């Protein structure tokens, strides 16, 4: 009896928190007065009941309005104005408590995995065997079972730590960020729901459960993107996304990917008759390779949707319509990484059962997406927009890492480090937005052109942000370097020179736009350290920036610390340990260990170049910011990039004209063709009836004539029948 068998306690803790919050929410929010039997009592029994409903409606509307009075006066920020009732804060504390428990358990699990006890017969170690937790069966037909199972192995444990850890920090952060928001309690409920779904996804032992978690995180993402569903749409031409459409877009786009995922599952299930990952690893070996290849590519479609890879990436930037903590937790650190996790989870099938084409598709899509997203990120002015595209780009790196690596270590390690520094970046941007809120300009606060020189106002944020920037730019000794550089290097070692080129160039671009962001936000021409450390006179906005409360800066510091420590630990071979751990105790090495060699030099050099260029353009201002966009070609490129290659518009057109067109066709077909036939036949019968109705004159003599005429006809018929006439 070891701790792993209680891994289900982790989601259970979150579930308990969620349930409690929901109960509190329902009690406090919904049931303030006992419900009457029927809303409208007007009717036969009470003559005076006529105006009852109106009165009722009036008072109810009153109540509802009082309930939402703050909605009408809402700005695009979490805090300031409005007060948070105690019960709502209680919800947040419950959530934090639950996550603390979950996080503690995850750490404990990690420790247990590290000391790696012997479990099961034959001295199999926990790390090798993993642990299988059977909850219950949905149903089974013959030897087909639809089980709800959890499986805990090294991969799971890592994800558990990441998810619970980041989620915990985001919870703490949000207590500050969304203070005073009317949806305060709702926010924490949805956060807890997300964490729960993510844990289910991570703990899943088979394709059924992982699909359940997969869809549930989609749901919570939908809810959280639309958290501010009552906002007015942003002005035209603004880069800001608009919550209501964004949430639908996010869900439907990922669904589009899930379509492929589902088909992939169906193929795998039909071929092997099982959902279980472990069973699949062996079972798929005996199935036709090409079929498995197709299946795995289809599964990857799901990952493409969820991790916002190239064709289906457009939802992620829009998802930034959600509150910034959400962007940090869901759309940067954890959920969007689910796709990577899925591929990593199915890595054996990809590597052995499927043909090489599967991983080629993964790799090229990943590399292309990385480059593609980075180019778009160059032109964003919306601070969260830049981060969104950088996320897409980094996810591309992870897929490349999975595709080129001998094991799933590369991708997972980048996922691991990226989770921390990208969450850090988003939370930092959240602090910035939080600091810059002005009542007049609700939509401009995310526009970097109205920032600058914030470093002096909010030093903590700035430092943390700088650390994260260095990490994502792959500058040693920060964590990003240890996870990103090997990916680029391995691509070279595997002779995927195209991928290598793309990723290398992307590294340059990444460094450039990240520091462009930093300079435009915190620094500026004339600031200290050559514009790195801006101040009042670099500030271009009209708000009163200030450092955020501790509840918000604390998570920043933690994450920054994590970034730095993981980075430093790299020198002590943490990444090796990671590889050893992830490959269940087998000591595989990184394909390329970053060291003093040419590859590493190139990788770091790209980053340094990017930083230098950004510094020249935005920090020192030696190179004018319009250096590249002044000439017509540059201008054209800039326009294309600024409009995201017009992909959103293209998709909009497709949806509007092709999808809705076909739909309209169907509806019209029903209305005019089918119903036309139906109603037409009805009309025909009608007209026939009106024709025969003429004979009913009601005149005695017509009837008489008919009578005797009939008799006469019968007579003649008889004659003809008996042949009496004509012979």
């Amino acid at each position, binding site marked *: 009896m070891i701790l792993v068998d209680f891994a289900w306690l982790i989601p259970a803790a979150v579930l308990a928190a969620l349930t409690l919050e929901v109960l509190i929410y329902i009690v406090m929010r919904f049931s303030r007065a006992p419900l009457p039997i029927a809303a409208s009592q007007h009717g036969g029994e009470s003559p005076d009941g006529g105006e009852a409903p109106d009165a009722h409606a009036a008072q109810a509307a009153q109540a509802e309005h009082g309930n939402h009075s703050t909605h009408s006066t809402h700005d695009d920020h979490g805090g300031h104005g409005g007060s948070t009732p105690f019960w709502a804060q209680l919800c947040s504390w419950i959530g934090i408590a639950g996550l603390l428990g979950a996080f503690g358990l995850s750490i404990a699990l990690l420790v247990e995995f590290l000391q790696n006890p012997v479990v099961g017969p034959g001295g199999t170690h926990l790390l090798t065997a993993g642990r299988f937790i059977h909850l219950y069966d949905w149903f089974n037909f013959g030897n087909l079972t639809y089980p709800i199972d959890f499986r805990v192995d090294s991969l799971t444990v890592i994800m558990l730590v990441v998810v619970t850890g980041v989620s915990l920090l985001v919870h703490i952060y949000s207590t500050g960020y969304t203070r005073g928001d009317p949806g305060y309690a709702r926010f924490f409920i949805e956060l807890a729901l997300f964490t729960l779904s993510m844990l289910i996804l991570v703990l899943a032992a088979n394709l059924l459960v992982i699909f359940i978690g997969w869809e549930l995180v989609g749901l919570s993402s939908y809810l959280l993107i639309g958290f501010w569903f009552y906002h007015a749409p942003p002005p035209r031409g603004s880069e800001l996304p608009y919550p209501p459409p964004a949430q639908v877009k996010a869900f439907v786009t990922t669904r589009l990917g899930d379509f492929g995922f589902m088909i992939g599952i169906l193929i795998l299930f039909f071929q092997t008759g099982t959902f279980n990952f472990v069973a699949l690893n062996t079972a798929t070996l005996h199935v036709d390779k090409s079929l498995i290849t197709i299946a795995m590519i289809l599964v990857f479609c799901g990952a493409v949707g969820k991790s916002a890879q190239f064709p289906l990436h457009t939802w992620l930037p829009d998802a930034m319509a959600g509150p910034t903590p959400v962007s940090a937790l869901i759309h940067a650190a954890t959920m969007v990484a689910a796709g990577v996790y899925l591929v990593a989870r199915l890595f054996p099938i990809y590597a052995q059962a499927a043909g090489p084409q599967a991983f080629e598709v993964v790799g090229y899509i990943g590399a292309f997406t990385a480059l593609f997203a980075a180019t778009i990120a160059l032109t964003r002015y919306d601070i969260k927009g830049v981060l969104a595209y950088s996320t897409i780009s980094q996810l591309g790196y992870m897929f490349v890492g999975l595709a080129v690596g001998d094991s799933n270590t590369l991708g997972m390690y980048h996922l691991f480090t990226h989770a921390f520094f990208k969450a850090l970046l988003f939370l930092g941007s959240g602090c910035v937005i939080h600091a810059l809120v002005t009542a007049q300009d609700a939509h401009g606060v995310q526009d970097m052109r109205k920032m600058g020189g914030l470093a002096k106002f909010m030093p903590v944020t700035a430092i943390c942000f700088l650390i994260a920037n260095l990490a994502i730019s792959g500058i040693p000794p920060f964590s990003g370097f240890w996870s990103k550089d090997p990916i680029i290097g391995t691509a070279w070692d595997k002779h995927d020179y195209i991928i290598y080129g793309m990723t290398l160039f992307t590294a340059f671009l990444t460094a450039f736009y990240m520091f462009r962001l930093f300079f435009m936000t915190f620094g500026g021409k004339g600031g200290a350290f050559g514009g790195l450390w801006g101040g009042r006179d670099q500030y271009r906005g009209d708000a009163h920036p200030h450092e955020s409360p501790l509840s918000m800066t604390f998570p920043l510091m933690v994450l920054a610390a994590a970034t730095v420590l993981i980075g430093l630990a790299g020198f002590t071979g943490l990444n090796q340990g990671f590889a050893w751990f992830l490959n269940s105790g087998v000591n595989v090495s990184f394909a390329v260990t970053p060291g003093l060699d040419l590859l590493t030099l190139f990788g770091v050099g790209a980053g340094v170049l990017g930083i230098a260029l950004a510094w020249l353009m935005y920090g020192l201002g030696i190179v004018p910011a319009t250096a590249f966009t002044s000439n017509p070609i540059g201008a054209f490129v800039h326009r294309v990039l600024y409009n995201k290659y017009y992909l959103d518009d293209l998709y909009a057109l497709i949806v509007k004209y092709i999808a809705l067109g076909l739909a309209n066709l169907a509806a019209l077909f029903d209305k005019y063709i089918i119903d036309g036939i139906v109603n037409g036949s009805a009309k025909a019968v009608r007209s026939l009836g009106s024709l025969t109705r003429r004979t009913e004159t009601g005149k005695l*003599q*017509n009837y008489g*004539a008919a009578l*005797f*005429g009939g*008799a*006469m006809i019968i*007579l*003649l018929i008889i*004659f003809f029948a008996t042949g*009496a*006439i004509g012979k």
Partner: protein
Amino acid sequence: MHVDLASIAFWVIAIVLVGASLAVVLQRNIVHAALALIVVFGAAAGIYILLNAEFIAIVQVLIYAGAVTILILFAIMLTQHSMGRNSNPFSTQWWLAALICILLGGGIIYAVGHSVMAIGTATSPVLLAGEGSGVGGTVVRLGQLLYSPFQYSYVLPFEIASVVLLVAIVGAIMIGREEEE
């Protein structure tokens, strides 16, 4: 052909009958039509005599030529000024009626001509001379058939017929009388 009294009488009466009934149908003035109807009834009575159905003939004269004609004349009198001057017009479907009648008549006559049931003679000098089965020709026999309590007879239908008449009288009164306001 060999001519005898019966056939002469028949032909005369037949022509009168047909002519009179045509008059009834074709007369423009309905009063004349009604008068022609009397002739029709009379001629029919003649035919009955010819068929040695004396009782029927008498009844015919009494009821039809007497009662019914009078009724009809009363009705015409009461409703005189309704049809304007042409008091006995044809409806628009007269041609259809004519067609039907001609075809039907043709059909019947054809059937009569070809039917074995129609073979035989209806009249005979013997019966005309009055010396037949029993005294009074067929009247006695008819009486027996109608009223005899002892042998097979039509008493019950006869009574029912009387009830029918009673009902008819009541009905006629009910329908015909002025509804008082």
